[in-house]
């Protein structure tokens, strides 16, 4: 059971995606687990063959538990006593800092994610079926390629009274309200820990966005719908590049010392409409092309909405960006997500009076605010970091 960030300690296995004898490669999703922060697809970090499944579907297990045994490539198939390597028992090793080809997260749609040859069920439908006690084997799917949708499950639940659960009812009593309460609790724990342990300092500045928005509008005119960019992608990329000039903002405060992040993995705060918040990571943002970053953002938000994220996305963020501009907020002074050491908040992009060269004109302006851990950095460096973000946004074509 991999580490899923500081605030998740246990998870329930919802579904195995592999069986003994299956061959897996690095990055494959092997299981789906339910946590207080939603469903998580567990990725594997070694290639090999699944030797055996140790923990069954429906079992609730703490982080660090061995879930399955993997026979690494090269190990003899039927050797009498090779000790198989534990699968995903510990946090995966961080990717190399200079990886030019980061782990590619395949753009699998969140709907109908079941493995080939198995029943296709959307994660939302699977969760609902567990709640309502609907046996998915009795449901006919009406979605794409016969996938079972939430509506199919609802119809099935109305048709038949829920049968008595045969084996290990999977959280049959967990309701949406329970789930929201559980998520609230983990957020409360993480934020309390942050305010208790992290001596925050806050710095704010206003950034002239006229170059960035002009460039973006011209660029989007040339692009078809799926390739268009949002200014939030520019902000995230600018932060990731600015980190190179202020590496002490990127990483973790662990055991009384700063551990730099291996790569710039930007956590993107996503507010969930049903309540709560997740901040999954986009990996190696500093080396991602803007087009790819945009695609990852669209995919990540979509999957967060559907309630299924990957284990590496939940565990790996080295710095967080939050954007409350859509809510009309002018400035965001955020709380750092421990054990990270910095968070950059952006407010609303709006036209404001701006003095430059002895003249006052109207320009699109955004407020950027840094919350940083004073144990890991000082205000002077934080100021340089914000200035670097500003400078990057004045050269949008280089992002």
């Amino acid at each position, binding site marked *: 059971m991999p580490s899923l960030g500081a605030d998740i300690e246990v998870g329930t296995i919802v579904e195995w995606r592999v069986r003994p004898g299956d061959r897996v490669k690095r990055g494959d999703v092997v299981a789906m687990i339910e946590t207080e922060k939603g469903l998580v697809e567990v990725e594997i970090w070694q290639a090999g063959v699944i030797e055996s499944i140790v923990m069954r579907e429906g079992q609730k297990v703490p982080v660090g538990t061995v879930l399955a045994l993997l026979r690494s490539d090269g190990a003899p198939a039927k050797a009498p006593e090779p000790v198989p390597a534990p699968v995903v028992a510990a946090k995966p090793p961080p990717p190399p800092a200079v990886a030019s080809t980061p782990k590619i997260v395949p753009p699998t749609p969140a*709907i109908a994610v079941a493995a080939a040859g198995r029943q296709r069920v*959307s994660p*939302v439908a699977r969760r609902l079926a567990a709640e309502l006690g609907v046996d998915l084997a009795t449901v006919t799917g009406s979605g794409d390629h016969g996938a079972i949708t*939430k509506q199919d499950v609802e119809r099935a639940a109305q048709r038949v009274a829920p049968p008595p659960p045969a084996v290990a009812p999977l959280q049959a009593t967990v309701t949406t309200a329970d789930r929201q309460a559980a998520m609230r609790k983990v957020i409360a724990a993480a934020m309390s820990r942050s305010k208790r342990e992290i001596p925050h300092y806050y710095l704010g500045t206003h950034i002239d966005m006229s170059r960035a928005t002009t460039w973006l*509008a011209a660029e*989007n*005119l040339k692009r*078809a*719908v*799926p390739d*268009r960019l*949002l200014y*939030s992608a520019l902000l995230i990329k600018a932060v990731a590049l600015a980190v190179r000039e202020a590496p002490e903002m990127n990483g973790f405060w662990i055991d009384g010392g700063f551990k730099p992040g291996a790569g710039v993995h930007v956590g993107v705060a996503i*507010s969930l*409409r*049903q309540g709560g918040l997740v901040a999954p990571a986009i990996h190696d943002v500093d080396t991602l092309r803007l087009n790819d970053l945009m695609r990852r*953002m*669209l995919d990540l*938000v*979509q999957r967060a*909405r*559907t*309630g299924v994220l990957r284990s590496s996305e939940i565990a790996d963020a080295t710095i967080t960006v939050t954007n409350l501009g*859509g809510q009309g907020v002018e400035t965001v002074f955020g709380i750092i997500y421990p054990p990270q050491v910095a968070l950059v908040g952006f407010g609303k992009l709006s036209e404001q009076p701006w003095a430059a060269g002895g003249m006052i004109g109207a320009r699109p302006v955004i407020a950027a605010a840094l919350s940083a851990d004073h144990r890991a950095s000082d205000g002077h460096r934080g100021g340089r970091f914000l200035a670097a973000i500003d400078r990057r946004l004045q050269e949008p074509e280089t992002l």
Partner: protein
Amino acid sequence: MTNDAIKAAVLRAIARVAPEVDLTTLDPGVNLRDQLDLDSVDFMNVVVAIHADLGIDVPEADYPKLTSLDACVAYLAAHGAG
């Protein structure tokens, strides 16, 4: 394509980005972004899904016209999906 078919396509796009929303309660005359609390990424995902489904490339300058469900259907009907 009928207005009903266009409406169905828009609702499919919304169901993708807001799976937790009960679409039967949607007020077709009220601004979608306000009503469903869609952020800019959600809205872009809606436009991308409509593009994939109906093949209509809505220029960025026309995004403000895609306010309510009714407005979306009217716009799309007038711009190629009719």
